[in-house]
Every structure is written in C-alpha cells, then in structure tokens.
C-alpha cells in the first residue's frame, strides 16, 4: 500500500495595492487540484473571502508572475514554486 501523496505547496506573493487589499504579502499553501491555469487561479482567489474578493474583483487589472517571470492568464500553474500577483508595473 502506498501513502497518498499530499499536493505540493506553493508560495503566493502580493504586491502594491493588491497586497494592501488582500491584507497579506506572502502565504504558503497547496492549491486545489482543479486549478490548471493562471486564469483558474485568479477566479479562485476572488472567492477566498471579502478581502480577496475586493483585491481580485477585476482579474484583467492583475498581472501574474510564476517563478520570477511574467506569464499570461493561459499559463499552467503546475510545478510553480512561487506565484506573484500585482498591478501593472510603474517603475522608472
């Protein structure tokens, strides 16, 4: 008999107004198995209580990076170690 493998944990990070609205800068958790793409993840975030609902109300205004590289909403989240959520960048 083999032990059921627990799903891998991922680090989620939040920046700028997304961090302020979500009320968290970083968390570590296992994503539900039915989350395949970044888009799935954004829709799931918007259902995690009032603060996240407000932060993720407009998913089209949110940019996502997986393991320090920009990704599109169609990107797969499998094997991600770190996923970050932030508004469009305004440096320089």
């Amino acid at each position, binding site marked *: 008999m083999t032990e059921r493998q627990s799903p891998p944990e991922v680090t989620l990070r939040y*920046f700028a107004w997304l961090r302020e609205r979500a009320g968290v800068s970083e968390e570590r958790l296992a994503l539900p198995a039915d989350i395949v793409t970044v888009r799935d993840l954004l829709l799931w975030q918007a259902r995690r209580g009032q603060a996240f609902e407000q932060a993720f109300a407009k998913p089209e205004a949110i940019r996502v990076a997986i393991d*320090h*590289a920009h990704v599109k909403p169609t990107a797969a989240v499998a094997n991600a170690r770190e996923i*970050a959520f932030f*508004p469009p960048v*305004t*440096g*320089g």
Partner: protein
Amino acid sequence: MAVRVSSDDFDISEEMAKLSSGDTGIGGVALFVGKVRGDVKGQPLVSMTLEHYPGMTEAELGRIEAEACSRFKLSASLIVHRVGELKPGDNIVLVIACAPHRQDAFAGAEYLMDYLKTRAPFWKKETLGDGSAQWVDARESDEDAATAWSQTTK
C-alpha cells in the same frame, strides 16, 4: 552588463567611469536619469515610495539588459533602480548604454528604459500635500513605447 536595486543614491560620473574606463572601443555613452517630480496633476507631491519584487526585479532587469545587448551593438550597460521613500528632485533610476557608435548607445538606453517601465516589477505610491496616498496607474504611453520596439525589424 549589470543591474542593481538599492535604496541608496547613485553617482553618475562614478558609475559611468566604472562601466566604461579601460574600454577604448567605446565611442558613445548614452545615459538616462529618471527623477521624482514635485507635483502630481497640479498637487504638490510630498514623497514617493517605491516597492519592488526582490528576486524577480533582478531577473527581469537582467533579461531586459540581455535583450538590449542582443538587439544593439552595446559594449556595456547598467541599470540602477532605487527603492524606498524618495523626495521631489531625487533620482529614481539610472540607465547607461555604452557602444562603439552613438546611434546604438541612444537606442540601447531608450530600449532599456521603455522595457524597464513596462516589465520590471516596481510600483510607485505617491503621498500628496493633503496627506492622501495613492498608487500610480500604469501609463498606456509606456506600453505603446515598449510595443513599438517589437515592431521594428532591427
């Protein structure tokens, strides 16, 4: 080729000397310094706070720099970006592109700035004279400037 994120100010002459001295193949150096403006749509600005994504910032700036070096004939380049709280008149960012010829130096520096503005994970929060604080919205014109490069064949 180098990138640096720091809360400290930079000295342009010193950075340029470190980057270009000893390489007499360099004929032109284009530099750009971004500074904090003292007003936001007529309202006086008290301070600007720059947040970034440590780890991704360095990775993204490195990718932007590598891309600039592959598109233009650059001898050396540097990106320095400040974070933390800055005041009107303070330096925010320094970009340097060294090349044998001036056209590559100018194009390299402009390319670095355009992509830095649209891809490097920095966010500005402005504190105004009335005590209010707001996150700066991304400018569409910055997106357009970066997109324009992907349509040039060079």
